[in-house]
């Protein structure tokens, strides 16, 4: 394509630096917001007002910000549950099932300590909370391990297995918290039992302490992939299972390991949302919505290209937008589903902009036509 005396060309990138990838992603977000402005205008809302409503609620309001942070922690954990198998070339679609099981396991510990009997039961937080976390991790890891084992041992498709486990665990939760279930709540309205106040997860400035676990995991996973032997083996297996096998990396161990690690983190996400977020402290009857929310972990994982640190801003953005979008929809009396439309536009643009991870636009000053130069012949 020619513009004036310049020629615009697409050139294949040889390398992609971190800051280049970051710039491309930021441009993608800005572009998505620009495109979505059209929808705001069609809905009769000034785009600036719309975005102000979304972002100020999500990131500055004293009501919205804690919600955003809780979602962010949840999404980040789900993203990591997805990323670890992804680096091994495997797809964990089972974060929902793993987090349901994590939550159930945590509440099973509380139940065993008699938490169901009374809201005012005094339990030793120092013992019960670590046990609940441990149980949630084990529960999630156990569900993950099923998919990993089947993949490693029998080469069973992990997408199908994790997906099916989502359904199974969904109904197990239903059986346990609904009427007559072991974990049924006192109100009988379909929620699970509420934790006694004595074992509420500690808050730090109103934020559950699980945020530190999530951020700690970010650093840990970065380190895992950049420096450790096991991280190397996972990456090698992910890029070429045949070459990894040749190099002496076990084609059984790696799938099992990544699904245990992924399931473990998803289990923690289950603990976080149902046992650590203020105002909940129970497995709510709409627990399925959190399972659905977990699928944003896939989106965040794909956009961050499996980079644990890059996943932080992306999970924060999606956490904020799912939250602020819903608020703005109500406040500005927008049509149903406009928040999902915004997320959809954003996802498509972010994925489309990954084109620029491989190509760049270059401007070349065009040479004079050779016919002008040729004298001979």
């Amino acid at each position, binding site marked *: 394509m020619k513009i004036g005396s310049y020629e615009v060309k697409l050139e294949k990138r*040889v390398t992609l630096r971190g800051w280049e990838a970051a710039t491309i992603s930021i441009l993608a977000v800005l572009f998505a917001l620009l495109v979505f402005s059209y929808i705001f205008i069609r809905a009769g809302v000034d785009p600036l007002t719309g975005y102000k409503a979304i972002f100020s609620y999500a990131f500055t309001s004293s009501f919205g910000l804690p919600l955003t942070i809780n979602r962010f922690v949840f999404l980040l954990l789900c993203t990591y549950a997805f990323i670890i198998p992804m680096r091994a070339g495997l797809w964990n679609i089972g974060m929902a099932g793993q987090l349901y099981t994590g939550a159930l396991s945590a509440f099973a510990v509380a139940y065993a300590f008699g938490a169901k009997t009374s809201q005012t039961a005094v339990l030793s937080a120092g013992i019960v909370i670590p046990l609940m976390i441990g149980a949630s991790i084990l529960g999630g890891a156990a569900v993950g391990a099923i998919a990993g084992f089947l993949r490693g041992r029998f080469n069973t498709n992990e997408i199908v297995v994790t997906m099916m486990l989502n359904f199974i665990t969904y109904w197990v939760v239903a059986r346990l918290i609904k009427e007559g279930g072991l974990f049924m709540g006192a109100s009988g309205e379909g929620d699970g039992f509420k934790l006694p106040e004595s074992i509420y997860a500690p808050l730090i400035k109103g934020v559950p302490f699980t945020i530190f676990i999530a951020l700690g995991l970010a650093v840990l996973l970065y380190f895992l992939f950049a420096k450790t032997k096991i991280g190397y083996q996972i990456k090698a297996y992910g*890029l*070429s299972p045949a*070459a990894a*096998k*040749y190099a*002496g*990396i*076990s084609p059984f161990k790696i799938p099992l390991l990544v699904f245990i690690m992924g399931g473990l983190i998803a289990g923690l996400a289950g603990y976080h949302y149902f046992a650590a977020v203020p105002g909940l402290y129970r497995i709510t009857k709409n627990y399925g919505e959190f399972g659905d929310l977990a699928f944003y972990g896939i989106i965040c994982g794909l956009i961050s290209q499996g980079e644990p640190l890059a996943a932080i801003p992306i999970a924060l953005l999606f956490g904020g937008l799912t939250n602020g979008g819903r608020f703005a929809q109500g406040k500005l009396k927008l049509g149903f589903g406009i928040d999902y439309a915004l997320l959809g536009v954003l996802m498509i643009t972010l994925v489309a902009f990954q084109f620029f991870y491989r190509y760049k636009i270059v401007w070349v000053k065009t040479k004079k036509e050779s016919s002008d130069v040729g004298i001979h012949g």
Partner: protein
Amino acid sequence: MLLESVKHGDTVLEARGITKRFPGVLANDQIDFEIKAGEIHAILGENGAGKTTLMNILFGLYQPDEGELYLYGKKVNFRSPLDAIHQGIGMVHQNRKLIPAHTVIENIILGHPKAGTILNLKRAGKEITELCDKYGFKIDLKAKVWQLSEGEKQVVEILKALYRGAKILILDEPTSALAPPETKRLLESIRIMTRDELAIVPFITHKLPIVLEVSERVTVLRRGKVSARLATKAATEKSLAREMVGRDVVFRTEHVEVERGNPILQVENLSALNDKGVPALKSVSFSVQEGEVFGIAGVSGNGQQVLAEVLAGLRKPQRGRVLLDGIEITHTSSLERWLKGTGYIPSERVDVGSIAAFSLVENIIMNYHFDNRFSKGGIVDYKGLRKLTEGMISEYEVAAPGPDTTARSLSGGNLQKLILARVLSRKPRLLIANLPTQGLDVGATEFVQKKIMEVKKEKAGVLLISEDLDEVLSLSDRVAPMYEGEFMGIIPGGEARREMVGAMMAGLKPKVEAI
């Protein structure tokens, strides 16, 4: 039509000043050459000399940045391979592009404009049979492609191009996967084709004898430029190699006599299945001693790959035993075998021997992640390994900008040098080299063969698997020709004659026992 009036010796395709740049590489630099009717024109060059780029330009896959193509004196501009096909250019790729589950005839008419929506296999069959008769091809049109040998698949590709009306046939390394008798048959057919004023351009890297035998003219490329353009009659193997590499090349790696010691590898009645579950290795027994190169000669697909994988711990045998230094390792993992001193150079250097997206350092780690000298407490010593990689790059003369470039950016020869450097740096007791010089140019081949001889000198054992008869004969102390999963015999290197081993590779058992 123009084509009818083409006479022998007329220029059919001419390239003038072809230049093609890729980021950081000048792949073709002002290349001129012409192809004449009824002539076989070989294009010779090392890996990375620009042959493939040039071929892709002739076939319309790439557009040149500068320069022009003239077909029958008329300027042409191929925007796609379809354009090139319509104008009578046929291409036979080195990596066969056929559908294994379909029959020969179905593959030949695939995508043919005449095929239409409803296939008239009968008419097409008749026309193809005529082509076969004319050029001396023997092939069962109803056979499924997966049942064919490499040579037969090649014939299918050629027929496909001819059936489409190709007048200029480009063959990419046409003999690389063929057994000696198949090569002979192919060359005969090619000669018959030239009588019909077809112009044929084979691209050949390292099989110089074939260039000399079959072609009339040669264009030699070096680093993207034409370094020589000559009549084959005026060329010798030595002069061509010098033009290609830019220096004199040793053709036969010196055979070194080393005193043989204890057996390192002992294989007893080993049998295994291939991926399809078919017995591919049938009760093979042999041993490799210290200071010995044991050569297995055979056309690919006769069980060598399965044998190599079983020995490397990548495939489970059905029966039999494998002993390394007298200790049974039949059921150990590939990791344990690395640790015990088996070094494996796989034939699939891109898919198995390396990881394209990994840096050179990370590729070296493929054989070091289990090495305690380079990882402490589960943390990999990237710094130390980077240094190790730098050392290997300079010692093995790997042409690469640095240790952080990806393996993807290396040419075949340089990638093989890197793999060789990595495996040999482990100082293996037993080196299994599976097609170590396949597809490499003369320079790289010479280098790899020299290194294999060095391993032998250090009193390690080498199991060499090769399709190149000359290579096996010149390097091995003992030669085992392999056919359909069995050894046709084990012959001391000194007694192995080319014709005899060639015949055994094709399935003939010699009656040596009956003296």
